[in-house]
């Protein structure tokens, strides 16, 4: 449904995004996961139209949308610190987009009430944003975006401003809301747990490159790159000598003579017995990677 074709972005001399290709399905919860500065927020802003790509196309149902300005794209965004307009009440914040579209007063009233009920914030309609807690602000921000009936909801680190306990709670709420609406969510986060818990699929980004796109399970169990493996969960690195390979299971002898076995990640034509190899170990599993 939403397709990114070879999206690139460079600022003067620096490259921020390199040839991003991605296809996201209807009703999917997709997370862009990566450390800060990897380009994930830039990519989200390019999808929203708040920034323009220096190359590539964005297609929605096969139609190009990348030439449309932000206000004409059927996407809405939940901002990192919510960006609720401080001079408007909760109700006015939510009605903002509808007013700009020139809806009748009654229609606006009805829709605002409906979406407030959806996020369970009905009684906060006349409150000012600065009287709300973090979790409440987040719900209002989601409601303000949803009320415009976007085709895709974009979320920029939606939970990062909340404390730990609240975050877990809102994770569940967000996921439940997405499943109830059957809407496509694209969520940017640097929090692995959050991405693993929420998403149908995860795209791991590093230095402007999309390293791997797969389900949380696959990302966790068979990371395609060392970066993906390390970013999802911290790993320790052991260096040793490859002594035996059977199928994709390798045996490595470490410096002190002890042997470990693990899945190998090196193309079979490059495997030589006796080569130096690095083993990455984390709590749940061991796997091998050719040493550089």
């Amino acid at each position, binding site marked *: 449904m939403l397709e990114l074709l070879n999206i690139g972005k460079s600022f003067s001399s620096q490259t921020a995004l390199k040839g991003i290709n991605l296809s996201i399905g209807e009703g999917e919860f997709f997370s862009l996961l990566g450390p800060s500065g990897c380009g994930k927020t830039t990519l989200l*802003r390019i999808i*929203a*139209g*708040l920034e323009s790509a220096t190359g590539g196309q964005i297609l929605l149902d096969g139609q190009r949308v990348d030439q449309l*300005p*932000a*206000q*004409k794209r059927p*996407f*809405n*965004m939940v*901002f*990192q*610190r919510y*960006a609720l*307009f*401080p*001079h408007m009440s909760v109700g006015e914040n939510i009605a*903002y*987009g509808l007013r*700009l*579209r020139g809806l009748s007063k009654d229609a606006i009233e009805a829709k605002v009430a409906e979406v407030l009920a959806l996020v369970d914030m009905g009684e906060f309609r006349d409150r000012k944003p*600065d009287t709300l807690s973090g979790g409440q602000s987040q719900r209002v921000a989601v409601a*303000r*975006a949803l009320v*415009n009936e976007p085709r895709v909801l974009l979320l920029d680190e939606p939970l990062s401003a909340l404390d730990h306990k609240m975050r877990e709670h809102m994770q569940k709420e967000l996921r439940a809301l997405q499943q109830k609406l059957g809407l496509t969510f694209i969520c940017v986060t640097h929090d692995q747990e959050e991405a693993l818990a929420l998403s149908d699929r995860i795209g791991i980004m590093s230095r402007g490159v999309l390293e791997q796109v797969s389900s949380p399970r696959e990302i966790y169990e068979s990371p395609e790159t060392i970066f993906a493996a390390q970013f999802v969960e911290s790993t320790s690195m052991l260096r040793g000598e490859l002594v035996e390979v059977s199928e994709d299971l390798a045996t490595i002898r470490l410096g002190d003579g002890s042997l470990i076995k693990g899945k190998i990640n090196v193309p079979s034509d490059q495997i030589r017995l006796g080569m130096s190899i690095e083993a990455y170990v984390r709590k749940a599993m061991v796997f091998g990677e050719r040493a550089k």
Partner: protein
Amino acid sequence: MTSNAERRRPAAPRTATVVLWLTLLLLHTPIVVMIVGALIEKKPTAWSWTLRWFAEVILDQALMDALVNSLKVGFAASVFSTLIGTAAVVGLYRSAGMWKWAVEGLSVVSLIFPEIVFALSLLSLFFVLKFELGLLTVVIAHVSFSISYVMMTVGARLATLDRSYEDAARDLGASEWQSYRTVVLPLLLPSILGGFILSFLLSFDDFLITYFVNGVGKDTLPVKLYTAMKLGVSPKLNALSSLMFVMTLLALIFFFRSSAFRVFFESGRRTHGENTKKENS
């Protein structure tokens, strides 16, 4: 507050504190004496409190005419300078190039040039253009020096404004103009009000520039006061000065209370966004 500001600061020597107090004393004593002088009257036997001098000021038609002139000029000048200054700040916002360079440069020039150069150059302009001197020329002059102050006050607020408000407006369907009108301007409103009050104050208090470019018989209060005090001091002038002082003070209190003041003097020390400011106010 940064942690640095909260850290213990070893006290300055006693001498420094004494100098501070002495200076404050020297700064404020004459004003206090002046106000007291406006409130007392010498009776044959002793001094007594009176409001007589204030009544004399209010009943003086020439002074009241000057007051009306001052208010007219102040109002017109601050409306124009607030409009022009605010528009300029919004226009400068994240723009670049020749325009930005020229407008910012000229606003700094108007801030640092000695008043007298400002005054006589405007007088020369009006003379060369054969512009008749009157209240209009005073308004033009006051707008010219107030724009920069409005730009400073509003600009300081805009610099700390979270950019995501504007992004959110665009994302929700606002055009560039709509996002300015419905989001950016309302958020700037306190600082725009601050700029308005500041330029009114500057206009109301200005003497030198007005003295150069005002028309015959079109005196503002400070010019009237100047001409009168050339002849010497009197209890009536004390009352006039005290009244003007109190008016300025009231406007100042408004200015200080508006959030603009904080931004105006603390912009150098604070660079972060919205959250901390909200907690402080």
